[in-house]
Every structure is written in C-alpha cells, then in structure tokens.
C-alpha cells in the first residue's frame, strides 16, 4: 500500500507521542532489514510508518559493569564493541556487512526464526529489555519478552528502547551453525554460559536459536548442568536434554529432525569449548 506518512522522530519523547497519537496501526521500524522487504513485496501494506533511525536510541555504553545497548545500535557497532566478545561473535555471524550496517540490536528481537542470533547471545547473558511507554520505563528479562511466535510483551504505546546486559559470572561460548560459513540463516544457534567453582557448575545458561518459536533457553538442560562437574558426561546429558526440550521446526533450510540433531551436537560442542578452555580467569 502506498505509505501516506513516514515519521522520523528525532527523540524518544517524539516517538512515544507519535505512537500514542497514531495507535497500533503505526508500523514501527528501526533498521528496516525485516520490515522493508515485506513492504517492498506488498506483503505488508502499512499506511503509517515510524522509523527510529534518528530517534536517539543508539547509545552504547558501559556503566557499573553493565553494558547498555540502545535499541537502534547497529550490529556493526555491536560487532566492534569489546566489552562482551560473545556479542561481537554473535554480530559477526549475523547476515552480511551491509545488513549489519543497517540492522539493529533491538530489531533483532523482532526477527522471526530462524533469525534472532543476537537475541540468543543476549539470553545467555541474562539481558533485560527496557520497554518505555508514556508512564515510563519497565525492565523485564529478555526471556519474558517473548510470548510466542512473533508475539511479545510490548504493550500498546510502548517501544523497546534498549537492553541492559549485566555483569555475569562464567565463561561463554557462541556457535551459529548454518548451511554455509557466512551470511547464512541458522540451522541452530547456541549460546552458553557456565560459571564454575572448583570444577562444579554454579550457574549455567543454554540459549538456543532456530529451536522454537523464538530464541529460548533450554532450562531443563541448564538444571542438568547446575551442580555437576563440567565434563563429557554432564555435557552429553545436558545436550540430550536440550535437544529434547527444544521445539525445532522445518523450513527451507533444515528439517525439524536435522535441527534437533544439531541442537544436541552444538550444545555439546559449545559446552565442550568451555570445558576445554578450563575454569575461567
């Protein structure tokens, strides 16, 4: 459909005002890498669109050990930051250079599976998302942001404005497995974080992409690891549980059967990478 209004607010308050005034029919777009293809093909026919590229939501800063990532920070900037190498790794493995120059971290949370690789890494880091509405900002865990396939916890009048990545303990590993080496849709994406004390796992996160309706944590597998001595046995057990509890799907890239096999394999490979690396710092 022919767009009659394209708004480019210059501030968050302007953006919120527009959202309030125009209501849910206002399509919100950041980098455009998910929305524009749909508009170009006539699959999405919005009349009113708000672009967030100039809304001042692109702050990237470290404070009190936390990393704050504005919703419209591009993947290229995420790749170049050095505070959290696992996020660089996730960004490096997402899309192509040109797309990374446009796509945003916030937008990655709205990317349908098998997309959403950045969100997988963020999940493993206990990231919270900041949802800002007329009444102010609320912080919720990223895991609670997703409510289903292409649905989320955003309420009318709210925008996703940023992400807070706390300082968390442990070692991390990120593996994206696709059909090709770069610029590839995911067969499975795995991010793991394991904190250990004297060889015993004190805290574990296993986050998966392309393994369900949205990026998700393999909580049962995390529980298998917790309290165990990280090693081949625990790794195998956790990987098997992760494969079992995930909800992979078939698409043009891979079948559900294959994805489940690869979830098991790459959870194991990611944990193995941490185990081989020895206990941290």
């Amino acid at each position: 459909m022919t767009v009659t209004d394209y708004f480019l607010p210059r501030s968050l308050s302007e953006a919120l005002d527009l959202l309030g005034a125009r209501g849910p029919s206002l399509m919100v777009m950041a980098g455009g890498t998910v929305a524009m293809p749909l508009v170009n093909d006539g699959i999405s026919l919005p009349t009113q669109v708000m672009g967030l590229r100039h809304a001042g939501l692109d702050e990237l800063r470290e404070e009190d050990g936390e990393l704050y990532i504005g919703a419209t920070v591009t993947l290229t900037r995420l790749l170049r930051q050095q505070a959290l190498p696992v996020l660089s790794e996730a960004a490096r493995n997402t899309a192509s250079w040109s797309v990374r120059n446009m796509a945003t971290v916030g937008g990655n949370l709205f990317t349908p599976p098998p997309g959403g690789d950045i969100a997988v890494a963020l999940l493993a880091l206990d990231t919270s998302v900041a949802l800002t509405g007329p009444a102010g900002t609320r912080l919720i865990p990223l895991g609670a942001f997703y409510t289903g396939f292409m649905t989320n916890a955003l309420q009318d009048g709210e925008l996703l404005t940023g992400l807070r990545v706390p300082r968390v303990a442990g070692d991390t590993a990120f593996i994206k497995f696709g059909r090709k080496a770069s610029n590839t849709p995911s067969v499975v994406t795995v991010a793991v974080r394991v904190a250990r004390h004297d060889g015993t796992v004190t805290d574990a996160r296993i986050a998966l992409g392309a393994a369900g309706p949205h990026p998700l944590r393999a909580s049962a597998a995390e529980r298998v690891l917790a309290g165990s001595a990280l090693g081949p046995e625990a790794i195998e057990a956790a990987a098997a549980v992760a494969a079992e509890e995930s909800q992979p799907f078939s698409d043009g890239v891979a079948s559900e059967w294959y994805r489940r096999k690869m979830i098991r394999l790459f959870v194991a490979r990611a944990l193995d990478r941490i185990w081989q690396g020895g206990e941290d710092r």
Partner: protein
Amino acid sequence: MAKLRGTGIAAVNYPTGMNLGGDPSQALIHATTSGSFVVSLSSSDLGQGLRTVIGQIAAEALGVAADEIIIDTADTDTGPHCMGTFASRATHRVGNAVKAAALEARAALFAVAAEDLGVCADEIVTDGHGNLVVAGDPGRSIPIAEMATKAQFVYGRTIAGRGSYMKPKSPVDPETGAMDPDSTEAHACTVAEVEVDTETGQVAVLSIRSAYEVGRQVNPALVRGQIVGGAFMGMAHALYETTEPYYPSPEHKPKDFSEYVLPGPAELPEIDAVVLEIPSSNGPYGVKGVGEMTANSPIPAIVNAIYHACGVRIDDLPVTPEKILRGLGAR
C-alpha cells in the same frame, strides 16, 4: 568429530546446438567509412561474452584487430534473426553466421582492393595486422581501413556481407529414437575432493579440477570463466540448491536468497582446469559449445567423492547434510 576425505571423478560429453537442429542464426556486416566493421545481430549476451567472442570471429575472418569490430545486438529492427542464446549454440551458430558474413564482406573488400592495387582478387591476402597485401609482394599493400574508406568515397562500393547458419532440422524416429542430436560434442572429466563432517553431515568441497575438450577456444579467459563459474554452480546443485526442499512435497518453498540456499564466496573450493583443443569439423575455426556443460561433471564427481569419503551413496540431489547423516545412521 570425524572429518573424512574422499575423491571422486566424472566424465561427460555434451552436445553443441539445439537437439535435432533447425535453429538458425544470421548476421549482417558492413564497413564504416573509417574501416571498422559493424556486425548486426539479434543475439543476446547472457554474460558469457558473446559480443567479444563473436567480434573475435569476425575480426579473424576479416583480418582486422578485434577492436575494429562493433557489435550491434540485439535489436529486431536492425539485427537479422537469431534463434536465441541457449543450448550451447551461440559461439557455434552465431559464430558460423558471422564468419560467413565476414567472408562475404572480405570478398567485397578484396574485389575493390584488386581494382585499386591492379591485381586479381585472389592475389590479395590479409597480414593479420589490418593490412591487405599482394601475395609475394609485401611492398604492395594498403591498410584495410584506408581501403574501406576508398571503397566508400572513391569507388562508391558497399563493403558488406550476409551470413547464415542452420543445421537443418532432422526428425526423430518415434520407435527407435534414431536422430541427429548434435552438431559436435565437447567433453569434460572432473576430479573433486571433499571432506565430510560425520557429525553434522556437512560436506566441504576442497577442490574441483577438470580437463575440458571444447574444440578451439576463441577466448581462453572466457572459456575459463565458464569452467570456474560452472564448477561452482555444479557444487551448488550437488549440495545446496532446491526450490522444493521436501520434494515432492511442495512445503517450504523458498521465496528469497535467505531461504534458497546457495553457497557463498566462503565455500569457494580450489577450482582449476586444463583445456584440450581438438577442433570440431563444423564450428567456426573449430569451436564447440562450452557454456552449459560446465556445471555437469562437478555434480557426480562430488557425489562420488562423498561416497569415497564416508561410504554413503546419495542418489537424491541435493545431497544435504541431513541426507548424509541419515545415510551414516543407516549403515
């Protein structure tokens, strides 16, 4: 994690030109006032370099440098009929038509040159450097460009030629299939090396090395372009490509390049080739067609290499990691 390596070969032939013939192409050539030659066609260049190759054939026949040829294609108001660019036919069919047109234009040029130089036309030769020379008397010569100008302004003559090539259409015997399916055949033998990851089923193609026999090469760099690009496409066909990932089920049909899986530059194996030249009897200067066949032998060579590597023979393209894993599991 086991990574197993294997080598496979395949050897193929491929016909030049439309099956059964009946596919004409035509060309017109005329000289400009400054002695360049315009070749008028209605043939499409798909990127293989038709304009360049056809220009080389015209230049060869006329005895001028390649950059003296202006290719005017493709316009149905100015270019005579061409059946089209497919079936590995363009260099052979259009090339033959252009060569014939060039020889006719050359004869017209020689006729006027004979008058100008005061010799018989059959005493004149081209020296390969843009000159007309009286055979056995190198002192008597005139540049083609100058002769063409004189033909226009002094003699009022047209330096032009028509060319056409068609292999007449032949019938198929519906009972026995007796037919004449080609004008000539090119050949290739490919050796592929692969590495199979037995945990993921993923195949990395390490090298695709081939020998090709393609008749005479008009432009070796462009032949190499076909071989390298075709090898990559063959690898894509063998391992990745499908518009129906669950064929014959029509589910999950890709709609863009993120869903239609194609290998990228990071998957580029070593691709190299050696080319034999054994001229054909009916192609211009002995050419055969090379455009299509270059994707053919890499496919079975890769599939055979996978079997050699891991003992799984997949007869169902594309050979996805999933099929290999299922094959490994079934052993």
